[in-house]
């Protein structure tokens, strides 16, 4: 049974004159214990999709889906409150902008002890406070904050962005979620410290069978940590498959370009030569191309691309393109 099964999820930015389709019929499935990468260029709607899954988008946005199942339960049939209760119990998210997501009026210690999952405490009620505190401290150690005493007493604005991100990770893990959505969990950290966090997440996946949806724009880095990958571009579904297939034999021209622009494929070039890069930039929501949104930048685009391609499934490897690279391997 799938843990999460989303079919054709759309997210519309409501406005009086013309509503904007920010995310256009994207599908996403996750199995139990799976680590899935969600990649795509900046602004392709990855964070929006994640926020829609855990239901924290405000009323400006309208979310709709053909199917939205969580562990076999149809969430679309439940009321908003029931849905929230289920999701907030089982799913935790590490937000991309940690500073904005922590409560500025409470110390880190208060927020973190509050986040600790009550069910894991075993003692009598008068011991629970102490246990909560101990759990909070051990979580801080796990995410690489050694000076827990100082950190617990501080308010979010007194910490730098990288520390906030670590606290955010500790808070997400405190809930002991079944599914962890990690939105660029190490963006604010120095690259030398990033491996530590990814190793922590990987070990939780192995030991606790926690599923992870890892959101990132860095395809090459994601391939080191995931079993499967879903690629998006400008709010549309691009390609999904095993990490190996996506990185070694992408069928979609956009994935091909992502792979080609990764540092690994560029390492053979002479110094100061120009690197391979897809020309142009991602369209803004107010002026989206019709049909396949990659059209204006796509090296394989033809007339037919003004009609959005349907998703093709080839041995579990899904892609959405009229002129895919499937035949070229």
């Amino acid at each position: 049974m799938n843990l999460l099964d989303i079919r054709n999820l759309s997210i519309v930015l409501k406005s009086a004159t013309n509503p904007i389709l920010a995310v256009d019929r994207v599908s996403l499935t996750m199995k139990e214990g799976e680590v899935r990468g969600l990649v795509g260029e900046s602004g392709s709607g990855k964070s929006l999709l994640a926020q829609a899954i855990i239901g924290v988008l405000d009323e400006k946005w309208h979310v709709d889906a053909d199917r939205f199942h969580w562990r076999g339960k149809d969430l679309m049939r439940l009321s908003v409150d029931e849905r929230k209760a289920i999701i907030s119990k089982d799913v935790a998210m590490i937000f991309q902008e940690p500073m904005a997501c922590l409560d500025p009026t409470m110390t880190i210690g208060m927020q973190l002890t509050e986040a600790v999952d009550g069910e894991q405490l075993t003692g009598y009620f008068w011991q629970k406070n102490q246990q909560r505190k101990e759990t909070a401290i051990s979580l801080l150690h796990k995410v690489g904050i050694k000076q827990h005493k100082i950190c617990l007493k501080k308010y979010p604005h007194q910490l730098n962005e990288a520390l906030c991100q670590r606290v955010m990770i500790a808070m997400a893990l405190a809930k002991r979620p079944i599914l962890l959505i990690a939105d660029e969990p190490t963006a604010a950290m120095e690259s030398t410290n990033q491996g530590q966090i990814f190793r922590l997440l990987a070990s939780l996946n192995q030991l606790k069978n926690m599923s992870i949806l890892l959101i990132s724009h860095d395809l090459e880095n994601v391939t080191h940590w995931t079993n499967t990958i879903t690629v998006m571009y400008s709010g549309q579904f691009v390609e999904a498959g095993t990490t190996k297939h996506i990185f070694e034999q992408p069928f979609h021209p956009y994935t091909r370009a992502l792979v080609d622009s990764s540092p690994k494929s560029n390492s053979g070039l002479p110094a100061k030569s120009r690197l391979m890069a897809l020309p142009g930039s991602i369209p803004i929501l107010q002026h989206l191309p019709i049909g396949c949104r990659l059209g204006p930048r796509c090296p394989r685009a033809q007339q037919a691309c003004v009609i959005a391609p349907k998703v093709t499934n080839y041995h579990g490897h899904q892609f959405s393109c009229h002129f895919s690279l499937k035949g070229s391997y």
Partner: protein
Amino acid sequence: MPILLQVNNLSKSFRIGRKWFNQKYFTALEPISFEVQAHHTLAIVGETGSGKSTLAKLLVGAELPSTGSIKLNGQTLQPGDFKQRCQHVRMIFQDSGTTLNPSLTIGQLLNEPLQINTKLNEEDRHCLIRETLQKVGLLAEHMNFYPHMFSGGQKQRISLARAIILQPQVIILDEALASLDPSLRSQMINLLLDLQEQMGLAYILISHNLGIVRHFSDKIMVLSKGQVVEMGDTAKILSRPKHQYTKKLILNQRFQLLHR
């Protein structure tokens, strides 16, 4: 080729310990001297805490040096003279994407430095903003957007736009490329190389990614605990490192790539 930036005996110590009778100093940067030519890129590498960001902040004037002087085009930069420095030496900070003023549109944000530092009229400023946005892979329409309407990576591009809009002579990139997505990073490196070729810009590149350092820089400076352990041609040092510390850095990165 002309020498653009000349640094002499620059150092920085921070005072630690709060009480006046218990003052201790922590030296983040020992005195160092170096030069950067026009058209050249100097890469600075080293572990976390080795003083890279401190050096960068001294160069842009965000921190006052404890000793030493900085010369731009042969002229000494006075520690307090921000106007001159703002225009010619720009820096893109490690976490600059998150420091944009939320109450200004992108257009206003980019207009500000132009109004303060140039004599351009409104129309020219508008044109320049438009051009710069396109250079960093954004669109002219983005001018009317507020920072919260952008995704995380797009905010990075805005801070890049803010750095290049004054057409400075020296740009300091403190891990600025690290958080860009790869397709934009390639575009950005190409753009920076183009600008360097056309305008003779000098870059100071602080990066953990030795791949980028190898590709982008001419000279390299290896810092450890505030001291320069090795300095010279990038290709030479990366292929035949002399110092143990440099060897370790290179090995570390190889290890990371292979065993992640």
